[in-house]
């Protein structure tokens, strides 16, 4: 694989990772059933999902790029949907609340002022606890989460594949080293959007999705810087 193409794959993967954080619904206050979304911070959740994707993709390392991308996407999406399942189970039977979208109930959805769930058409307003911003993960956020998981897994697998193809020419332990470096790039690209989102998002039907261009640009710059370092490592590493 051409080194320049590998570098572009790394940059592309990094940007996809940044974008996926906007799609995965997460909010820290959800742990008190006070906000819609998976009950943890967006950056760490996307990072955990992406790592599950990289781990799945690593099994297909010898099989080529397409299988790796698909495995990575599958692994991440599986982790997101299982987390949504667990969260909804605990909200339903532990706290006793149905999944409800706070943004939609308050007419703040990105698609307009309807208070109905976009996918199922179920009314959100009567079921929300007053004073909270929703709880659990209704169907529209689940769909957004799956899309986010697929994008994140794709991005993570791309970064891993790019770094691996650059490192494998001269290092025997290339797999572990590239896994570590890929995780580092992944983390930086996950934390940056978390600042755009200020701690919570409901996925692609939240108004905050309109802030994606800012994330796109910052992740592009940071990924380019890191990809350049890795590229020069592979080209000039005669000293090892």
């Amino acid at each position, binding site marked *: 694989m051409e080194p320049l193409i590998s570098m572009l794959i790394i940059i592309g993967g990094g940007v996809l990772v940044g974008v996926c954080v906007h799609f995965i619904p997460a909010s820290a206050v959800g742990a008190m059933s006070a906000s819609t979304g998976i009950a943890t911070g967006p950056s760490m959740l996307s990072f955990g999902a992406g790592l599950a994707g990289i*781990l799945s993709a690593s099994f297909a390392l010898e099989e080529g790029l397409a299988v790796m991308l698909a495995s990575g996407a599958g692994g991440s999406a599986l982790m997101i949907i299982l987390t949504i399942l667990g969260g909804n189970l605990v909200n339903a039977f532990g706290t006793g609340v149905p999944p409800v979208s706070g943004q939609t109930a308050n007419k703040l959805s990105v698609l307009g002022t309807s208070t109905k769930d976009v996918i199922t058409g179920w009314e959100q307003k009567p079921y929300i606890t007053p004073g909270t911003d929703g709880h659990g993960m209704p169907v529209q956020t689940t769909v957004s989460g799956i899309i986010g998981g697929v994008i994140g897994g794709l991005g993570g697998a791309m970064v891993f594949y790019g770094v691996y193809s650059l490192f494998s020419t001269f290092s025997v332990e290339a797999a572990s080293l590239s896994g570590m470096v890929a995780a580092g790039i992944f983390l930086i690209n996950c934390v940056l959007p978390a600042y755009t989102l200020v701690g919570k998002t409901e996925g692609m039907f939240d108004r905050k999705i309109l802030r994606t261009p800012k994330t796109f640009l910052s992740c592009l710059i940071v990924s380019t810087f890191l990809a350049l370092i890795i590229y020069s490592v592979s080209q000039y590493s005669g000293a090892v």
Partner: protein
Amino acid sequence: MLPTLILGSALAGLLAFLAGIFENEDSDAGSASNPNSQVQLAPQIGHLHRYYNKAIAGEPPQNALWATLAATVAYLLIGQLSILGLNSIQSVLIAAIIGSLLAALIQGLYGFLAHVSRVASMKNFKQILYWDSLVSALPLSMTFVFFSALCLTLLAFVIHSLMGSPFSVPLIAMFLGFTLGAIGSSTGDVHYGAERLYQHYKFGSGIAISKQGDIDVKGEYGYRNSVDTPYFTMRFGGPVTGLTFGLLIFIDAVFRIYGGPWTSVILVFASIIIIFIFLVYLEKYTRDKYGPFEEGS
């Protein structure tokens, strides 16, 4: 090859399930992660408490550290243990136990430092540091971390040797720690944060922003301590976390047994669709059973 993969998938699923339960109980034995904001908030609005305010970091990096530390020490120790003439399974078990012990000790130290330092920053709110509330919850939390780090280390070894991942054992352990922390923080912690901390509010509602910080300070008898929390969350929050993480690792592993790489991808996406359908039915069920929100009754 086939029996190894089957054994590997079964073991991986079991270890992941146990790791999930123990990780959740550890985050509840000392108030950690997102619900900790409630325990931190309570003295500021006048509810002085006797909880163990274990504010180490978010759950994902914490669990990554305990798992990586245990796995690295275990991996290095195996080289030394082979001198004693043990076979590979015995040396893996012993090394993993010693590594997890070290991880538990470090966690105890970090938690102790965090609790004392946080209470020291609460001078204006007159929160007193009660040594006995710290000392009774600390060993419980360390025990759960020991078990969770042990399960994650063994799981990393299984994924590396029986399932054939190209990553090194400490790297797999770090990835698993991050994923387990993210899952545990989103599933089991809701049971602690929304239910156990607010038992004096009726079952069946989220916690409104205005009511946050108004946590239970008294328990079934006397003042509540953090050791009273795992007793409650083990009945629901723990197994749900275990189910989530266990299903993730098991589904990922078991679909790799037959066929080529594309088979596992197709099967994974099929299971995603099945779970999605189940989620839609779950939402319909709760909406019909619980009905719209009504105050009181």
